């Protein structure tokens, strides 16, 4: 138990450091790479919470798919302009104030929580159980997400073709 706690703090530290790095760096490429670390740290936390499926999808979709795309886009933009993409950090004081306020309010509120949900036991939400759920009880939600993706795709293609025409 002690060891698991230690590892989970390790992962949390990775997430916190990487996420604050995203805000502190001005180079967008560095920010994207730090986001990879943040996502990997989150995946580690999911594994420790016995949510292997979420951890694997996190790595596959975010790290493997979305972030690779982001990095590609940044590198292409970099080649195009010849300069590294740089952003400015505006409203630093206001931002810090908001963060402190947010952490204070949320921290104070969640200190009073009474959890009804216990940590899942090993294998309780294995991939198999999720698969069965997806095609039985949550079939409708699953199909609705399919409709959602279809509609997003149709909209994206419509606007892409329209912009090319004009």
């Amino acid at each position, binding site marked *: 138990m002690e060891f698991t706690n230690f590892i989970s703090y390790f992962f949390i530290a990775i997430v916190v450091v990487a996420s604050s790095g995203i805000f502190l760096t001005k180079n967008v490429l560095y920010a994207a790479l730090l986001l990879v670390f943040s996502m990997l740290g989150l995946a580690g936390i999911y594994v420790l919470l016995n949510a292997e499926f979420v951890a694997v999808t996190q790595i596959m979709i975010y790290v493997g798919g979305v972030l690779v795309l982001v990095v590609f886009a940044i590198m292409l933009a970099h080649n195009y302009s010849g300069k590294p993409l740089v952003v400015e950090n505006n409203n630093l004081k206001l931002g810090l104030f908001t963060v402190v306020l947010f952490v204070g*309010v*949320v921290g*104070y*509120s*969640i*200190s*009073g*929580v*009474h*959890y*009804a*949900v216990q940590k899942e036991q090993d294998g309780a939400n294995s991939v198999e159980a999720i698969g*069965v759920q997806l*095609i*039985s*009880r*949550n*079939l*409708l*939600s699953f*199909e*609705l*997400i399919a*409709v*959602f993706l*279809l*509609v*997003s795709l*149709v*909209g994206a293609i*419509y*606007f892409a073709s*329209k*912009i090319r025409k*004009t």
Partner: protein
Amino acid sequence: MELKNLLENQIVLLKDFLPVGVMALGLVVLLMSELTALKTRYPNAFAWIFIVFFSVGPLFVEPLSVLEAKGSFNILLSLSALVFGLQNWSLTDKSRQNSEYYALVGSIFIGAYVLLNTSHFLVAIIGLELMSIPAYLLTCWNTKKSSYEAGLKYFIYGGFSTAVLLYGVSWWYGATGFLELGSIEVLVVALNQSSTPFVLMTAGCIVIGLAYKIAAFPMHFWSPDAYQEAPTPVVGLFAVVPKIAGFVFLEKLTLVLMGTTHWQSVQKIYLLLAVLSLLLGNLAALKQNKAKRMMAYSSIAHTGFMLFPLLHASESNLSYFHFYLVLYAFMNMALFLFLDYYERKFDVSSLVDFKGLGSKSVFMGVLLLILLISLTGLPPTGGFIAKLLIFTGMYEGLVQSGDLIFLFILILAGINTVIALFYYLKIPYFMFMKKEAVVKKINPKSFLVVNFLGFILVFLITVSFFMPTWLMGIINNVNFVQ
């Protein structure tokens, strides 16, 4: 799990698919018929396909398992699809004859159906997203720079509020262990064990996430821009469909929160949202000079009004709430029908453009006048009865709970009704009192269907003044929420 059990489950679940399936089929038919020569032969074919699938789809109401379709706002959804289809059917605009246009709007209807009939948070979030993404795209539909800007604004607010909603929902799940809102007693017991600040934060996150869909105060910034830039029939949808769906879900949430011991504090969130939406909506509407923008603020003010009954959600108050919701839907459907008519026929966009149009089309002018009186909440229209019922509900709240909040609301709502009079009656003032300065272009095409639809809706609104019990009877007969 055994295969037999699974299959039995499937058969039960198939009923869930009927309404959504009909609408999804409509989506496919719309997209497929783009490939055929249908469009060149019958320019309005898509509107007809839309009407057939989307006004019939929501009517297949069955007691469902994941979706709890006991609510009957579905009829309103179907009516709204009918109005939208007919409104577009009578248009000749090329950009509205694409199947994509109808497919995106169809997705808004699927999302609204899902949100209306579910009490499961995750399904509700899918519904919200099904409504949001097409809404962003439809806001940009005119492909002008300003409409992209409005769409982007809408998108950023939408993403932010969904994140806030999901954060609240995850804490809700942690504290209660349920994502369904069905079993109220269990949820109340679970929530009572947590501290008040915690419930306040969780409920606050969820309510603010929903406030974006109903365009209430802290999340209203997208709405004036989106209303201004989106095609007018679509704006009519923005004002009606997501708002009703969001409010019905909010009502289910309120019924749970109401039972907890934290309700006294959680009530303050509702109060803050309602009062600020009402004040901001009405005061900002006074200064507008574009018709659609003004109506966006008016719809924010109406949101504030509709939040009041949820503060004291007794049985009678909830039926007043439903009455207002139904009338609000009628009024806004009709309103944007008229605005679209004037926009196409006389090229009207700002309030000054209405100058002297009263004598050009007397019939439509008078109908619009009745409608605007109803939106203000004056007799002899249904809007008056709706507002009166809200006031009655607040008075009941004052008597039953002795809470002075309700007295404050009564006074504030009264003052705001007077403020609303000033900006609503600006349009009839320009139409009837001012002489026309320059004759702008007049589109010769007749809009018979729109005229007829507008007449029917205004007629319904007027009838509900003389026979409110009739509409109330219908509303009370169908069980709206569980």
